[in-house]
């Protein structure tokens, strides 16, 4: 039997950042909905666990044209957040899990054994969320695309999301017995064009570069949707085959773009 992990239980965001340090050897627990089963089944044997439950990192703060969302905000408490986050959040798992699972944990979720996780990554990508995190090199604020590219290893403090933009959201409903998104597409029309991103297309959500560049070049929604799969290596997993995802993705892109008006 291994020794139980050392617990770090900060009571403020500043204390959380201080004890996280450069993140070396630290496992972060937000709501625990992803970590607990891994601990229960012994798939994860951490040495130090940073428990964020009492770190005061929850809540929404409205500024001019955007909303700052604390990383510890439960997915079920995003009603005041910008769309399409509100719409997408209602499709995450179920009401009991949404009450504890956090937006920060969802953002940082890696692929699960049976399916991609992190259902809110695509809406956040399409919104161009800016992520404030701490870790090696101190505190940084960067675009979510860059944040997801360098992967885990940082402690997210907050997410800043622009408000009031036209959006579209289309998804394949998950089967009743599974909590993760099979496939979903989010489109947002921002100041610099339309950003389109998809969940369920790999270990992490991805922007659909082909669709975005086709739209920038004046293509119709139907023409842009034909380029939905560009640059993607669609997974086969417990929820759907790569082939099926490939068939459905352009349809969802068209539906999401259609909602932009």
């Amino acid at each position, binding site marked *: 039997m291994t020794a*139980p*992990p050392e*617990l770090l*239980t900060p009571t403020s965001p500043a204390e959380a950042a201080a004890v996280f340090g450069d993140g070396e050897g630290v496992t972060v*627990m937000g*709501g*625990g*909905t992803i970590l*607990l*089963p891994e*601990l*229960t*089944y012994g798939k994860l044997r951490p040495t130090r*666990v940073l*428990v964020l*439950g009492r770190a005061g990192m929850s809540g929404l703060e409205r500024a001019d044209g955007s909303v700052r969302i604390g990383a510890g905000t439960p997915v079920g408490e995003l009603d005041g957040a910008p769309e399409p986050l509100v719409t997408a959040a209602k499709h995450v*798992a*179920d*009401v*009991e*899990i949404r*009450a*504890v699972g956090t937006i920060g944990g969802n953002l940082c979720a890696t692929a699960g054994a049976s399916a991609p996780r992190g259902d809110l990554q695509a809406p956040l990508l399409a919104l161009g969320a800016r992520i404030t995190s701490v870790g090696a090199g101190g505190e940084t604020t960067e675009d979510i695309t860059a944040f997801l590219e360098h992967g885990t290893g940082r402690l997210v403090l907050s997410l800043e999301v622009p408000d009031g933009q036209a959006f579209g959201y289309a998804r394949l409903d998950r089967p*009743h*017995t*599974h*909590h993760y998104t099979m496939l979903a597409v989010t489109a947002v029309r921002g100041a610099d064009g339309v950003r389109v991103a998809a969940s369920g297309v790999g270990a992490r959500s991805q922007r659909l570069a082909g669709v975005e560049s086709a739209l920038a070049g004046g293509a119709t929604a139907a023409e842009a949707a034909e380029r939905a799969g560009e640059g993607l290596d669609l997974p086969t997993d417990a929820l759907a085959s790569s082939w099926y995802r490939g068939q459905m993705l352009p349809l969802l892109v068209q539906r999401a773009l259609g909602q932009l008006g």
Partner: protein
Amino acid sequence: MHLTVNGVAEEVRADPLTSLLRVLREELHITSPKAGCEQGGCGSCTVLVDGEPRRSCLTPLIAVEGCDITTLEGLSNGVELAPIQQAFYDLYASQCGFCSPGMMMASTALLSEHPNASREQIMEALEGHICRCTGYVKIIAAVESVANGSAAGGTNGAVASGGSR
């Protein structure tokens, strides 16, 4: 670590990251919360934490220190069944019974906040709860019968008019 379970103050010794489910079942021998999937997918472990429905398999002990936990064992007064239990009994909403504790705890939380909950609210509250006997129709009818006041409140399997739904 201290917590209150069904009104009884308990001191438990488990590691703080142990799931509340395992603490309840293995340390306190309270076995109505079921270890179905133990990964948040089935709802059979749902208990109330300070009145809110929570998956006990996803809840680390450290998150409920000092909290009030209610399990199915805490619903009745030991003499009469709670209304939701009576409705499950009267309307045949349990078949194998494995999902029933979680279903009843989630329903209890819903009905305490929305005593006249609509069918849609009931379905949302139970969306994460899986019944492998597929008895959903009777389960929802039982919760509805409490919400709309038509529960028989009766005895011995007497089927109220709602039973035919």
